[in-house]
């Protein structure tokens, strides 16, 4: 169920820290720029931010003092099981304490001190959103990006200024060591090699997954081995995790 017309905005609510009725994305500060998204059934997870994606848009309702879903405007952010769970969801707006949150510095805090938190601190597709005791790590820090100030995603050939790379434009990576060799692949492993014409030395930035992919193996992305625990680099099936 979607709202018909634009909401009438009423400026900043100084106590709660949100602009009233002004749609926004809730973006993690962990680095990827993923946003909270409403799933079918009402659960909330982290997903790549979609320009104009209504399932990732919320607004502050000054009547109930809750954060409502733009996609389901009769529902609000809600701590499951009437506040007894740690899971966050959207639920029919009731304005009870487990639906009321304020912005405090970079956190979104409930009056009982629980804050919005990415479960496990994992900045990955589908990471669950919960409430947790405040510890101020990055997985509890958020940026409110108002939809009317959001910039469209760069298209093919345009610069992604956040990543410093042009979208889907092939490039080589040249070592500054004396011989100027290129980054290359032997099998899946990253190595240094004399420039040649092979696709294993060509790379491109994929806007959808925000990863660097191999032209020779376009279903694979740069990957720190061992799910980020190793120092070795390879290309691996794209999972858009932080590693």
């Amino acid at each position: 169920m979607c709202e018909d017309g634009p909401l009438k905005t009423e400026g900043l609510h100084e106590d709660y820290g949100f602009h009233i009725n002004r749609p926004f994305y809730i973006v993690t500060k962990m680095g990827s720029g993923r946003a909270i998204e409403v799933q079918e059934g009402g659960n909330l997870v982290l997903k790549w931010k979609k320009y104009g994606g209504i399932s990732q848009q919320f607004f502050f309702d000054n009547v109930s003092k809750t954060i409502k879903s733009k996609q389901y405007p009769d529902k609000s952010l809600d701590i499951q099981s009437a506040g007894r769970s740690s899971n966050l969801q959207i639920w029919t707006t009731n304005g009870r304490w487990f639906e009321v949150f304020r912005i405090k510095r970079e956190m979104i805090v409930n009056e009982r001190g629980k804050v919005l938190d990415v479960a496990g601190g994992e900045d990955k597709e589908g990471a669950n959103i919960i409430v947790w005791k405040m510890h101020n790590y990055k997985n509890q820090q958020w940026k409110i990006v108002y939809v009317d100030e959001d910039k469209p995603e760069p298209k093919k050939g345009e610069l992604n200024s956040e990543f410093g790379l042009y979208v889907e434009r092939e490039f080589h990576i040249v070592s500054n060591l004396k011989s100027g060799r290129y980054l290359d692949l032997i099998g899946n492993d990253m190595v240094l090699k004399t420039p040649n014409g092979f696709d294993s030395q060509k790379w491109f930035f994929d806007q959808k997954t925000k990863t660097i992919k191999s032209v020779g193996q376009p279903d694979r992305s740069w990957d720190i081995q061992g799910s980020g625990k190793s120092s070795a680099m390879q290309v691996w099936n794209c999972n858009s995790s932080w590693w």
Partner: protein
Amino acid sequence: MNYKTSKVLEVAGGKDQEGQNVQVAKKNGSTQQKWRILYADKMKARATKGLDAEWGFHLNRPFYIRTKMITGRTVEALPNGNLVLRTIFKDRKPQMFTFSGIAKTIESIEYPGKSLDIEESGKSANLRLFKTNARWFQMFRIKGDYLVNERGLVVEIQGNRDNENSNIGIGKLRNAKTQQWIIAYADELVLSYEPGELNPQFGIIVEKEFSIVT
């Protein structure tokens, strides 16, 4: 730089060599961690002819690899991929090679897509033809009279004799005649011999009197 850990890409151990591993590490500002992005559409067109000064070969110009030993025999590729020394014949394709400006390997004219290759991924002493992969064990430069790779191994005639069918392999540089070669470009090849030289195709020295003894 990885957005979560701020670790950066670096050449392991700072070793600027073929096939050296690339990993991530804490940023320290060293040269081994510095890279530049070169967009493919901004690159100059690759040269297709002329001398590749770094490797010493002319591009796309077929050549023979002839020993500097007296017979002047040349390297020939056999159908099984092995390389042996044989008497030179003009326009004989298994004896002709070309330098690949793309892969930086010495490719066979008779067997396109295959290059000189140290067997067993560089662990063997045998040289053969194998599918071009541009790894270190397929890359040789001309240095003076030698065909040398970056690990200092040179192409040589095994057994120290320039006999017909002597095997071609790899050895450490020891300034031996069996390691010395002439790159004879096919478009310049003249198979004539001066008086006193051996004509290898006939096995007789030119204009030198001889007796035939029963």
